[in-house]
């Protein structure tokens, strides 16, 4: 039965390599949760739910960091979604094949730019105009998530049957209504695209930390802001003891939020048949 044949070596190799990412994510999750749980137990729920994040005084309230993350992400979505969806709509419904291919390649390239490069660019172009602020951080994030949203929702829009659009046109309605039909048909795919864009926004750290100012405060458009990830970036290299574990807790919150959004986003995309 057991022949140490090529067959078995093949399976051993395939399963071994397949297990590796699973093991990696499990090890990462255990490591993060272990450190985070210790910090959470030591800090206590009441202190965690406070606004003050002052590690030097042993105060680890995450509320303002959460507010910062939500504020930056929400404004980034407000900026990115209209642009990305308009572009996706034009490219998939009206643009010719060559234009679409060229535009998609450019958009994909924009999405692939390393975040530190975008951060450096933003420091010299966006920060002088808007300061180290909520609005700067959101603009940078919008720039980074718009390509994701545009490409993924474009893919959803291209799945809309051409018959459907032709039938709408045959009814004599204008193109505004025709594209509404297309967007309605592709709504799940678009929702998935936006959700996946959101999860990317939540996890982005480097570029945001270069323009946000990273000062823990309640969100105000033109004032500096700190998010979960930017706090991690500026404090981790010097944190020790409980401070370090509290930062792992922040990482843990980000991980959970991103995982939940990814699952939801993929589910929406599957529903759309992508």
């Amino acid at each position, binding site marked *: 039965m057991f022949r140490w044949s090529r067959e078995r070596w093949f399976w*051993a190799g395939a399963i071994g390599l397949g297990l590796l990412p699973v093991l990696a994510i499990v090890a990462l999750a255990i490591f993060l949760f272990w450190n985070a749980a210790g910090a959470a137990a030591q800090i206590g729920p009441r202190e965690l739910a406070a606004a003050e994040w002052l590690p030097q005084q042993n105060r680890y309230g995450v509320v303002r960091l959460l507010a910062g993350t939500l504020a930056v992400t929400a404004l980034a979505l407000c900026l990115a979604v209209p642009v990305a969806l308009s572009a996706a709509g034009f490219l998939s419904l009206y643009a010719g094949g060559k234009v679409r291919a060229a535009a998609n390649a450019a958009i994909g390239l924009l999405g692939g730019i390393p975040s530190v490069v975008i951060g450096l660019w933003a420091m010299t172009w966006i920060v002088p105009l808007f300061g180290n602020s909520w609005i700067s951080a959101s603009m940078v994030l919008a720039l980074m998530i718009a390509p994701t949203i545009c490409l993924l929702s474009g893919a959803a829009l291209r799945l809309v049957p051409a018959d459907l659009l032709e039938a709408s046109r045959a009814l004599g309605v204008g193109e505004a209504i025709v594209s509404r039909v297309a967007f309605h048909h592709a709504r799940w795919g678009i929702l998935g695209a936006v959700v996946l864009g959101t999860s990317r926004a939540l996890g982005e750290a480097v570029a945001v930390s270069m323009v946000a100012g990273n000062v823990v405060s309640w969100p105000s458009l033109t004032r500096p802001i700190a998010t979960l990830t930017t706090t991690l970036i500026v404090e981790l290299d010097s944190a*020790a003891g409980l401070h370090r574990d509290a930062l792992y807790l922040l990482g843990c919150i980000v991980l959970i939020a991103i995982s939940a959004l990814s699952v939801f986003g993929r589910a929406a995309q599957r529903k759309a048949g992508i």
Partner: protein
Amino acid sequence: MKKTLPLVVAANLFVYAVFFTGACRRQQTEQVVVTGASTVYPIVQMAAEELRRTKGLDIMGQGGGSTRGFEDCIAGRNSLGAMARELTPEEKAQVIALPIAHDGVGIVVHASNQIAGVTTDELRQIYRKQVTHWSSFGGQNDRIVVVHKAEGHALRGVFMDYTGLTPDEMTRHTDVTAGDNAQVIRVIANTANAIGYVSLGEVIKAAEAGQPVRLVKLNGIEPVMENVTNKTYPLFHPLYLISKREPQGGSRVLLDFLRSPEGKAIIRQGNYVPLE
């Protein structure tokens, strides 16, 4: 295939376990590990290169901040801890602190900023936002962007002690929080109206590399190595290597080297001030 699947999975897990423990064990080979203050890191790095060449000694430096240097030392995770600040009385009771150098703290602005210098009092006013525009110092009528180091960095504490700002004032009036020295320099190089405090050596290096940052006088004293050496420049901090017990072996070699004439020359080269 179905029957062999659990076996193959188990075999793979076993292989990973063996690799993992093997990788952990490898760290136990003789090596001097120095962790802690990133300000001390360049000194350790330069000494490591020299000692690897001359004595074949393997020294590894790692950042992580002064407090980490102390905690690693207590937990036995390093051979020597690096600290860029005065030790607290509780810390002093637990380790041997071996001073190796001191380092000036430079007040940094963008290269285009024309101000000649600030006094301690003006610095306090800037960081309390009592003075908010460069025009108060004869500069342009632009809002001053106040840059702080993040919580946990030694220099943040050094700056706080020097200016007498309260912890609350340190957080409330900040425009930008940056992490290590390089991040502070990058922010100031890109922000024409910023002011910050950074390890003097790091600024000199950055300015030499062409970054648009410059140091300003503090209380009329030029921020040059000479003045830091004779301590007329008022803002500086000590650099320590710490150890739980009297250092032996490779750690001893490293310490002796840093206190030898060659070691001191290397420390000076990095724009730090070696021990007398």
